[in-house]
């Protein structure tokens, strides 16, 4: 290294820790322009790059490490930042200004500690392995998942915020969950006694055991479960696993070993500029102690990160002056909010309380001695009051004449402090410290779309708790600027799907062009509105989707009546009603698959999927299938897919009804029904539920007396158990109710909304739906049934229809001017069948085409 380059070289900045705060610091360094001055190197102890710990429990309900990850995979590299994952810093050599890892030594000019915290596990005799789990990292969660296999019950020690999150995680793993708390109430930091009691009642109602004022003395082998936890006083609780979530401790080991000042209660001591006792070293987030306090929330950590980044970028940095510890959460599905002085600890503070013992709701408003300012609040059961109350506290807004009104139930929903009442300085997003003024400025600069606003200002991209408030401010500001708020489907229709549905029905609209001409803009439409309107038209009038006016509306799978796969070939799924098939038909499927060399796989819906057909092969394949008596399976449509069934009373010694016959009846009735999203059904012949009906949109389970109907279940990414809707129905009654439920769904759901999400978004919930469908409270019953009958009467197999019409078959040509197949489709053989060649394999074979 020569002298000349040394002068121009950037200084070395090392960040120890790649958690949420460490990552935020990197983003801020990038954004504030500090990379001109520093070469940045980041060390993370974990294998994964920074991820969202706030939403950790989603790891068990559909998220994976990648969806939880913060920032894109290449983000650091893109900015020339070196990220060392799975490389723990062992030591800081302050004299030589180097950090030491197992891989070597790295010099620094400035160092930022962002090592976070670790879970505190009280010393309890006999705790080890599955009785000493913690809930902090993805690896911890993998350990919990492993321990949960073959387990029935799980206990969380600690009834605070994280403990309840952990209980939720155990619940989503299918365990019976219990919470053991040392204090006499849940969430002792955030809630007062009444709030804790209300939360306990709600959580117990969800089937989670709550054990308060219990100190665990020892853990021994259990009798009915793996372990027994012995409490003081002689009581015990048995369990298969124990997760400790009894609090966090600052991860300050590096600070201690390198001789930095450490606070009495832990945490590397920092000043208001986040500097430690060594001016070259900063500490931010949960590893830092400011004024004797450690802040275990993401917002204060972000604000420290922001300040340090600004200082390093040479900008005016604001100093850290403590943090608002207000929190708003949904724990186990229960709203909990805590604002400011929730315990009324301020001298002279007085409280208003609202207690609803029937609904286990609780709200407390703490005001100052003068009765003019809000000091704090506690909310359990309904967080719709939170945003307004927080604004009162944060902005010192004067209380209204009747302060109690702020927490009393309102017939029209929670009282909202109009967005216009907020001063420009009001913080909307505390994670990223975005003020109302910053949002208004972005709108003034032309930002007219909510997603864009989030992207530009970063508001609502942290914990997401400010989503509702942000939307309110955004819409209010747009209206104030004379812009109408856009709830449009797309740029061509200023209507929601539900409104378009009503227009189609009321005006009897039969085509997209008619719809566009009467209610839309332009003369073309787009890939959002065309399939949506196409689906509504099909739901209402059920004309063949291959009609010339309807073809251009369908998404590509509907257009070609097959499912496009990643290499542009299609899969073909003939209908196999109820999963029942004759040997002869099975042979035909085999023969067709063999003839066209199709990859063959059994589906989850008791059908057979044939993959790898090219466009021009589809008519011939379907010709042979239809010849043998098959119909289209509509696997390509947002429509009825399958009715799965068990063999029922015909064969099974337990069966109490003929589930196959019922499955055939249902599949025959609803086949081809177009809906906002796909529909899956199942019929089980007895309560053993072998057809898994409770995970379907429509689930039917036989009883001694008839059928029980379950609705709005879902498998997939967000599993949801179907809910029992009606019991002991006869065949005709069952079909009548399904007719009504499905048509009501088609009428009121949003586009691409599965029944599960639709049901959850229904105001009034299951009771409302029962009133509409079973008690006919809206007087719609007969109309819904008639609409369904029209659709049923007009059914025809789309493939049979298309094969009769040479005009429609014209489209099924790979090239309209050449007989060759697509030369870009390549297969390899694997396990006796062909499959698409992978991108990595593809470059090994010569290609004739150049990619642009």
């Amino acid at each position, binding site marked *: 290294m020569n002298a000349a380059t040394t002068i121009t070289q950037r200084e070395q900045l090392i960040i120890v820790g790649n958690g949420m705060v460490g990552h935020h610091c990197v983003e801020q360094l990038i954004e504030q322009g500090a990379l001109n001055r520093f070469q940045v190197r980041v060390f993370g102890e974990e294998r994964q790059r920074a991820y969202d710990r706030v939403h950790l429990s989603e790891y068990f309900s559909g998220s994976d490490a990648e969806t939880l990850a913060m920032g894109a995979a290449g983000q650091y590299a893109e900015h020339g930042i070196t990220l060392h994952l799975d490389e723990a810093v062992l030591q800081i050599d302050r004299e030589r200004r180097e950090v030491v890892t197992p891989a070597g030594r790295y010099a620094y000019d400035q160092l930022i500690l962002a090592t976070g915290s670790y879970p505190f596990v009280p010393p309890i005799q006999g705790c080890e392995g599955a009785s000493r789990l913690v809930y902090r990292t993805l690896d911890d969660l993998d350990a919990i998942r492993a321990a949960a296999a073959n387990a029935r019950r799980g206990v969380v020690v600690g009834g605070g915020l994280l403990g309840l999150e952990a209980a939720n995680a155990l619940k989503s793993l299918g365990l019976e969950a219990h919470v053991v708390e040392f204090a006499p109430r849940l969430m002792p930091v955030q809630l007062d006694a009444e709030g804790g009691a209300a939360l306990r009642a709600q959580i117990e109602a969800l089937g989670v055991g709550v054990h308060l004022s219990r100190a665990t003395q020892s853990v021994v082998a259990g009798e009915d479960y793996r372990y027994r936890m012995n409490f003081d006083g002689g009581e015990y609780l048995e369990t298969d696993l124990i997760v400790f979530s009894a609090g966090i401790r600052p991860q300050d080991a590096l600070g201690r070993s390198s001789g930095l000042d450490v606070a009495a209660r832990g945490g590397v001591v920092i000043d208001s500029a986040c500097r430690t006792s060594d001016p070259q070293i900063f500490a931010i987030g949960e590893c830092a102690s400011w004024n004797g306090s450690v802040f275990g929330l993401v917002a204060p950590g972000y604000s420290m990160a922001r300040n340090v980044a600004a200082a390093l970028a040479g900008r005016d940095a604001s100093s850290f002056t403590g943090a608002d510890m207000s929190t708003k959460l949904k724990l186990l599905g229960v709203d909990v909010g805590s604002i400011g002085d929730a315990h009324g600890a301020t001298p002279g503070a007085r409280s208003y309380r609202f207690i609803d013992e029937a609904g286990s709701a609780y709200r407390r408003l703490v005001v100052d001695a003068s009765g003019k300012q809000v000091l704090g609040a506690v909310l359990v059961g309904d967080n719709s009051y939170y945003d307004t109350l927080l604004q009162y506290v944060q902005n010192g807004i004067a209380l209204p004449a009747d302060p109690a009104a702020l927490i009393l139930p309102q017939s029209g929903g929670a009282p909202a402090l109009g967005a216009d009442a907020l001063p420009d300085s009001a913080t909307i997003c505390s994670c990223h410290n975005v003020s109302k003024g910053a949002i208004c400025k972005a709108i003034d600069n032309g930002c007219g779309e909510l997603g864009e606003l989030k992207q530009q200002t970063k508001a609502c991209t942290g914990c997401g708790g400010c989503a509702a408030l942000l939307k309110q401010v955004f819409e209010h500001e747009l209206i104030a600027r004379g812009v109408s708020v856009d709830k449009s489907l797309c740029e061509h229709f200023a209507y929601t799907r539900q409104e378009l549905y009503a227009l189609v029905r009321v005006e009897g609209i039969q085509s997209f062009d008619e719809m566009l001409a009467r209610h839309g803009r*332009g003369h073309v439409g787009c890939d959002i509105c065309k399939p949506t309107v196409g689906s509504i038209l099909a739901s209402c009038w059920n004309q063949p989707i291959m009609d010339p006016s309807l073809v251009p509306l369908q998404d590509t799978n509907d257009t070609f009546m097959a499912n496009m796969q990643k290499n542009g070939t299609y899969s073909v799924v003939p209908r196999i009603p109820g999963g029942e098939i004759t040997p002869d038909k099975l042979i035909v499927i085999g023969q067709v698959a063999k003839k066209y060399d199709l990859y063959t796989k059994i589906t989850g819906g008791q059908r057979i999927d044939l993959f790898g057909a090219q466009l021009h092969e589809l008519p011939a394949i379907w010709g042979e299938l239809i010849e043998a008596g098959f119909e289209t399976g509509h696997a390509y449509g947002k429509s009825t897919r399958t009715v799965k069934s068990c063999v029922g009373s015909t064969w099974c010694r337990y069966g109490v009804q003929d589930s196959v016959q019922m499955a055939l009846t249902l599949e025959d009735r609803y086949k081809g029904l177009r809906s906002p999203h796909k529909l899956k059904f199942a019929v089980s012949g007895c309560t053993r539920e072998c057809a898994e009906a409770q995970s379907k949109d429509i689930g039917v389970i036989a009883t001694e007396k008839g059928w029980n109907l379950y609705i709005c279940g879902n498998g997939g990414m967000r599993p949801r158990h179907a809910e029992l809707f009606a019991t002991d129905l006869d065949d005709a009654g069952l079909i009548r109710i399904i007719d009504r439920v499905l048509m009501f769904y088609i009428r009121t759901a949003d586009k691409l909304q599965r029944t599960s999400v639709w049901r959850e978004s229904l105001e009034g919930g299951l009771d409302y739906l029962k009133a509409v469908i079973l008690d006919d409270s809206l007087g719609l019953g007969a109309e819904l049934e008639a609409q369904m009958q029209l659709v049923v009467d007009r059914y025809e197999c789309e493939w049979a229809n298309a094969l009769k019409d040479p005009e429609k078959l014209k489209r099924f040509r790979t090239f309209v001017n050449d007989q060759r197949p697509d030369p*870009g489709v390549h297969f390899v053989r694997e396990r006796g069948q062909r499959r698409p060649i992978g991108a990595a394999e593809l470059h090994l074979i010569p290609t004739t085409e150049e990619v642009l």
Partner: protein
Amino acid sequence: MSLSNAAVNLQTQRWQTVCGRQDLVAQSGVVVWFEGRQVALFYLPGEDNPVFAIDNQDPKSGANVIGRGLVGHLKGELVVAAPLYKQHFSLNDGRCLEDEQQALQVWPVRLSGEQVEIGLA
């Protein structure tokens, strides 16, 4: 340089017939084999130049599927949505609306009587 269907029409010297008008599907796409390339033809009767020719290969998936995409009108221009990942390409210049890195070649194209012709550059 991005070629506009409209602009190039005037400059092009030679035209090659690729298919007939009856092979096209209104408001939708078909694919022709043209000089060793796969070219998607979209037919929008009512537009001044009702036929658009654009590369059939989707740069994101590598699959030859653009011709099977849905036609639309977004932010003032005619587009096709790629069927697999739904990114939009301008029918006029092949530009991707969501990602500057992606672009499709476009060709000058015209109806000549009942014939569809692509221009040879």
